[in-house]
């Protein structure tokens, strides 16, 4: 697995309203209201720039294409991902919250269901995001990826549960009911 040497920043350049895609193999990456701005890293300090870069790399490595959208009207992960899946040409989307919690969704599934769910944000690192991207691309191409091995840590609760709640609240603060979802271009800049 590769790790980035430099520091990178993420800018989400707004392209226009989030619309339904037509490419049959595309994966939509659906970001939560606080992702990238105002927050810049996950609960365990993985920079959002790295999260996006690895997701995109995973998709690219599998020969897929990606489109990124940002949602403002909800911070509910299932809703974000399911919304993304409905806009996705392939019906596959990766939904992600600012704190890192991630889900792979498909448009025909019930909102509360999913293809793969990664509920424990503290256990997600760059390597896992790469694998999630790769799997999403494979689902989009009707291939059968092996599910990303889920990690589990019973002691994550005492260490991270409250911080997760805090980040969740902060994310909720960023909900803007007046603002429709937009398509964005993730611009990753190396700063050193």
């Amino acid at each position: 697995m590769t790790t980035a040497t430099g520091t990178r920043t993420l800018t989400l350049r707004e392209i226009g309203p989030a619309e339904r895609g037509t490419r049959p193999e595309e994966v939509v990456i659906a970001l939560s209201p606080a992702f990238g701005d105002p927050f810049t890293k996950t609960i365990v300090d993985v920079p959002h720039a790295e999260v996006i870069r690895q997701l995109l790399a995973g998709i690219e490595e599998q020969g897929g294409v990606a489109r990124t959208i940002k949602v403002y009207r909800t911070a509910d992960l299932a809703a974000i991902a399911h919304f993304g899946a409905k806009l996705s040409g392939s019906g596959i989307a990766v939904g992600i919250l600012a704190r890192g919690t991630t889900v792979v969704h498909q448009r025909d599934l019930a909102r509360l269901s999913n293809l793969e769910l990664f509920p424990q944000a503290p256990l997600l690192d760059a390597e896992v995001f790469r694998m999630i991207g790769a799997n999403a691309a494979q689902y989009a191409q009707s291939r059968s990826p092996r599910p990303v091995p889920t990690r589990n840590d019973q002691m994550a609760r005492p260490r991270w549960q409250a911080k997760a709640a805090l980040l969740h609240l902060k994310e909720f603060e960023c909900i803007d009911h007046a603002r429709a979802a937009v398509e964005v271009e993730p611009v990753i800049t190396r700063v050193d």
Partner: protein
Amino acid sequence: MTAVEPRPQTAEVRASKRTEILENRPVNLDGFVEEWPEKGLVAMESDFDPQPSIRVEGGRIVELDGRTREQFDFMDTFIADHAIDVDTCEQAMAIESVEIARMLVDPRTSRADVVALGRGLTPAKILDVVKLMNVVEIMMGMQKVRSRRTPANQAHSTSAKDNPIQVAADAAEAAVRGFAELETTLGVLRYAPLVAIGLQVGGQVGRGGVLTQCALEEATELDLGMRGITAYAETISIYGTESVFVDGDDTPWSKAFLASAYASRGIKMRFTSGTGSEVQMGNAEGRSMLFLEIRCILMAKGAGVQGLQNGSISCIGVPGAVPGGIRAVAAENLVASWMDLECASGNDQSFSHSAMRRTSRLVPQLFSGTDFVCSGYSGVPNKDNMFAGSNLDTEDYDDWNTIQRDMQVDGGLRHVREDVILQVRNKAARALQAVFAELDLPAITDEEVEAATYADSSDDYPDRDVLADLEGARSVMERGVTGLDLVKVLERSGFGDVAENYLQVLRQRVSGDLLQTAAIFTGDFVPLAAVNDANDYAGPGTGYRLSGERWEELKKLRHVTSAENPEEEVV
């Protein structure tokens, strides 16, 4: 990246050796956060909680804690219409909070009086009262207002491999160690019938009259209960704000209906709630954790359910991270008991990396006694705990027994000699072996029975043929196997005593005795509830006292030097 990784050292600045030692203490692996009262990330003292108020018009509550009826959300409506006693509320609300707090602490005020007074109080008023109480006063209150006189305990018996033999053996051990209730759940849900059977059979081997439960989605859980394969239900979650309640796909009315459904089948049931769940889900509506939990408690009371599991439960990391959070958790148990509900008081989830913190979190419930001190205590090693780990597990048995002996408190457990434990584990596995054979389920080998006798965790058992087991589980449901069928099978395969125990449990369905508040079974199959064993604490020398035979039993530990012959240990 795991939680056991030490925090990254912020380099360069030189730290003292002591700081280094402190930095590496387990407690520093726990997470702590600053309060944020505007969003409800605060334990129990918040300027954003409402002021108590009540107004009754035409026999109906028209104002509750600063909101008028048209401003009520559905929790307000349900509480106003079902929980609060309209006839007494204005009078009760008029009493100064400090007066009520003192009544809770003062042994000369009877339980009956404070409980009666409590029937007329609003959530904000109740919060106002408990806010005045420090943790020792909360414990004083708990000692008096818990509903059942005799404290008890509950265990989790689960398996990381959903191995029914492990569940049976650990259930038998837990029962013989003294747990009154046993709860299980699954990794693979389709395994449920076999694991629930293992739990029931093992439990009745360990001690006749133990009550069992299998936490599942509503339909299957109710089905297993109705067949008599399980005896009670507990994982019926409720929440303190309307939005979170709706997110959980329920309302107070749907849950009240479900409560009646369980009772209509003669099945004991309690709700579950806890501080922190609403803020964790991001919809605390600016209220403190304890205020919202008090709303849950009153909702449960209004629904007429006999009891509540609370004490933060699966959200314990949230109150655990804010100032005064564990005091609030003790207070929520107190309020549940004060509202005359059976209280299964938490201590059931992995809470801290620090053994000291784990113990201190437990002290209020263990020392004052509750209806179930843990809900539950992991009767399997935590790695096998499918409820994601408990505050206590099998490794803590001897510590727990020693604390009971040190403090002369009854936490529901006892030390049991190794030979007895091996005997019940072996018998549980053999009984289940016979049941499986009779029901044409995939055979349990003698090797598995041997493993169950001496095992610690699921790693110590031979792997089962999971496909065949699942097929068997399906056939149990399809054939409509009932508890009564299991009784017959046990009877004819030479486990008549186990069959008799099980039949006694099923027989209670007919009497409905287990539907009363805080009901459990004694070893002699006498229902013990907050009716015939009502808490009568009235100060020193009264109430439940650890004495006599039970105290003699708790004096025993694994290693106690004999006074008669100091060269030997007491057995």
